[in-house]
């Protein structure tokens, strides 16, 4: 029985282009207090556009109705649980939004003199300090714009550190359970990728690793807990094996929501890691970004951090560009400052006492869900789960129904699907991460839904195969979208 939702009509809405009509206006600029310049004269007729052909012209009411209607077609955290594994879809506190919109945080230009930007620099410094506390690392950059960007920065630093010793080496080891950004990043940094298999318990195969580590290996990229939601119990040993051969350990911090306040990567041998502020630190996903991917390092990698670095000189903050061993800039200016403000507001709200409590709640929620669903879904690795758990569709696929199909039916129950078919080492994976945000009530509704679907698969499979039934659109034809891509509106 579907308990969380009931059908409700949603407004239709065309594209802006289909609402457009010549002469409609949604704006009013102040009067010009200087003479109007003739564009063609000032710029040259060849440089001036006559008009923007077919660009929409709509009224203010058109705009607000259009986007409001569109918004109602989306699911969102504010509507309920997103059980997406490794995405950490926790509540996005609105105080963060207020903090980021404080005029003194928003209307400051990155090229303002340092003396006129002390408040912004203090915020950056404070966030750096808090994140170092949480990670147990020694130095940090807040420049990267997202996790993948942070990974790239981190691998560049590994390259630089090894090159400084005479040999940057050739390859990066990556577990076969890794997120796709890991190998993509290693490749961008000029390294070849070698896969390390997971053992029978779903963790890094230490024997395979020992055989694979040699003087050609620059480092290993590890996620801990791994993408099965399992803590790599041999992580310190993994670090030792790498370090013994002069290689470095990179940690993908996507799963920090399992560790914050309870375990610090700096304490188990990590040399360099990134954080995802839009995961662990609650900054909103906004339909796909922005995020922020700070990179924290041990002292021996500090010289290679991107420029500029925040420095304190004569009791003032200043940006220091004199860093000869830096890997360079990874983006213009200093970082996604607006996202940094939100992350700091989050840390301040929880405080040093609240952060570990939130982490425990995340672990509790994930284990609770696991216990409720284990009788119905196959659990391929019987290891303790941290903040997420991964099932497989083994039982259901015997009846002809795979993880994607189950996910589509879950939509009818009022939930966003879990992560489908990842990690790749589990055939037909269902990866579930509830986060600490969810109450028992929401979790029970979710478990009910999943259990109900498991029963439907046995009793009324067609209902599941043809899902979703109650969404605005039926299943979307992704095949034609890929065969004949239409990626912009055209007249006619």
């Amino acid at each position, binding site marked *: 029985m579907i308990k969380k939702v009931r059908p409700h009509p949603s407004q239709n809405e065309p594209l802006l282009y289909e609402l457009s009509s010549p002469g409609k206006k*949604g704006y009013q600029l102040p009067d010009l207090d200087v003479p109007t310049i003739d564009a063609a004269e000032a710029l040259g007729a060849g440089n001036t556009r006559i008009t923007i052909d077919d660009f929409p012209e709509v009224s203010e009411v058109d705009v607000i109705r259009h986007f409001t209607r569109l918004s109602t077609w989306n699911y969102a955290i504010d509507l309920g649980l997103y059980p997406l594994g490794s995405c950490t879809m926790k509540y996005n506190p609105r105080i963060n939004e207020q903090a980021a919109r404080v005029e003194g945080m928003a209307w400051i230009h990155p090229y303002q003199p340092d003396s006129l930007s002390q408040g912004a620099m203090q915020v950056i410094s404070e966030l750096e300090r808090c994140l170092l506390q949480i990670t147990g690392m020694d130095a940090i950059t807040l420049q990267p714009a997202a996790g993948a960007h942070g990974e790239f920065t981190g691998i560049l630093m590994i390259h630089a550190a090894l090159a400084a010793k005479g040999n940057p080496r050739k390859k990066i080891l990556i577990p076969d359970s890794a997120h796709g950004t890991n190998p993509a990043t290693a490749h961008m940094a000029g390294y070849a990728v070698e896969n390390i298999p997971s053992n029978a318990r779903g963790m890094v195969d230490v024997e395979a690793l020992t055989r694979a580590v040699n003087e050609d290996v620059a480092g290993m990229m590890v996620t801990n807990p791994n993408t099965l939601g399992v803590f790599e119990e041999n992580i310190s040993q993994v670090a030792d094996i790498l370090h013994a051969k002069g290689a470095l350990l990179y940690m993908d911090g996507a799963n920090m929501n399992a560790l914050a306040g309870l375990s610090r990567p700096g304490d188990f041998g990590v040399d360099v890691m990134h954080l995802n502020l839009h995961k662990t630190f609650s900054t909103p996903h906004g339909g796909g970004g922005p995020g922020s991917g700070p990179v924290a390092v041990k002292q021996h990698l500090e010289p290679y951090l991107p420029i500029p670095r925040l420095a304190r000189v004569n009791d003032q903050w200043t940006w220091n560009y004199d860093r000869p061993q830096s890997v360079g800039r990874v983006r213009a200016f200093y970082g996604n400052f607006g996202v940094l403000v939100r992350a700091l507001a989050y840390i301040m709200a929880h405080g040093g006492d609240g952060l570990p409590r939130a982490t425990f709640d995340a672990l509790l929620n994930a284990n609770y869900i696991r216990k409720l669903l284990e009788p119905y879904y196959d659990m391929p690795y019987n290891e303790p789960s941290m903040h997420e758990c991964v099932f497989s569709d083994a039982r259901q696929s015997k009846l002809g129904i795979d993880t994607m199909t189950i996910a589509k039916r879950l939509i009818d129950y009022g939930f966003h699907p879990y992560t489908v078919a990842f990690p790749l080492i589990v055939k037909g994976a269902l990866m579930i991460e509830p986060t600490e945000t969810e109450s028992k009530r929401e979790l029970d509704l979710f478990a009910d839904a999943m259990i109900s679907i498991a029963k439907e698969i046995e009793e009324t499979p067609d209902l599941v195969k043809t899902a979703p039934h109650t969404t605005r659109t039926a299943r979307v034809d992704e095949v034609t979208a890929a065969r004949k891509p239409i990626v912009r509106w055209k007249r006619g």
Partner: protein
Amino acid sequence: MLDTIGLSKIEDLVAHLPAAVRFKSQLAIQPGRSEYDILDYFKARGAENAVGGGNGYSCFLGAGVYNHYRPVLVDTIVSRSEFLTSYTPYQAEISQGTLTAIFEFQSMICQLTGMDVANASMYDASTAVPEAAMMAIRATGRSNILTARSVHPEYREVLQTYTQHQGIPLAEFGYDAETGQLDIAALKSSITKDTAAVIIQTPNFFGIVEDVKQAVAIAHEHGALLVVVFSEAVSLGLLEPPRDADIVAGELQSFALPPSYGGPFAGVIACKEKLIRQIPGRLAGETKDANGNRAFCLTLATREQHIRREKATSNICTNQALIALMATVFLSVYGKEGLRELAVQNLSKAHYLADKLKPRFSGPFFNEFVAQADAKSVADINRALETKKIIGGLALEKFYPELKNTMLLCCTEMTRKTQMDQVAEVFA
């Protein structure tokens, strides 16, 4: 809940962790604070900055980050729960709002830039530039990149960082000392048969509008692609777009956000149809659902990291979706006529001030120009302006040692005549 799991206390959830990895002490972070304390903290930090816009300082800085009015509807709409707190639209049936808006965004960018395809955003222009370079390398099979020195210095730095280990030789060519535009002779002598792309910016870092057609001809003659970069998106309301370029990479901050101390912004890459499979980042495509109704979904995902892994077009995963949505709302509010009027205001303000000063370059400019200081040093000028609560232009010497005692000044629709008069006074 612990009962259901079969544990007696919450700490049991981590009992299996090796003792050595357990953090047993306290984080040196203050205990949790109330909303009021948090807001006070940020207001206090805010008061320690010179704040532009509205009743604060007036700011004549541009250089890649611009002060523009933001229609009230921008924040109203992006603050809606379903836009702010939703995830990447991988599940199309429950993300049609986001996907439709992305499709509209892509369409508008194509119209503004004269390209056929636009992606759903990159982190910013500075990282979009190396991504565009790598596209050109994949598409042409060549390895060298030739960049104009008049492209934003920090974008060029990022290009250097990105390409350092990929066997991509970088070269630069200069600008005409008189006009501030591309040094065409230098371009011709620097381009080779190994050049995959020529990268130029318009308006360039000096605010000067480039003759794109000439650059296109030279690039294409040599079998190279032309990448055109923009940092002041408002210029697209008035300037003829680079229709013959192959790739356009740009910054959307002007359409979305206040300066925000440098981020988060949103970049975009747009290109000709033939390069669609090389473009990085997400793409929303139009299709139908099982009932024949129009629907949108992410498409051509096999370019991306989660599928191609080490063979992906980029490692990008998270993009700047909410910022791109802000830009979409901004563009909807202003529309075809509004963007032009906005651009004309910018042009008029900057030209008013430039007439009172000594522009260093003679080339056509939009809303930024390089002013030469004579009587005083730019440092002295900026100090004097600060006392009048004016943040002066960017001293260029640190980026361009040959441009001694010059500053890059930007005027937008927010700049007031009285403020510009004060700047002119101090210069004199």
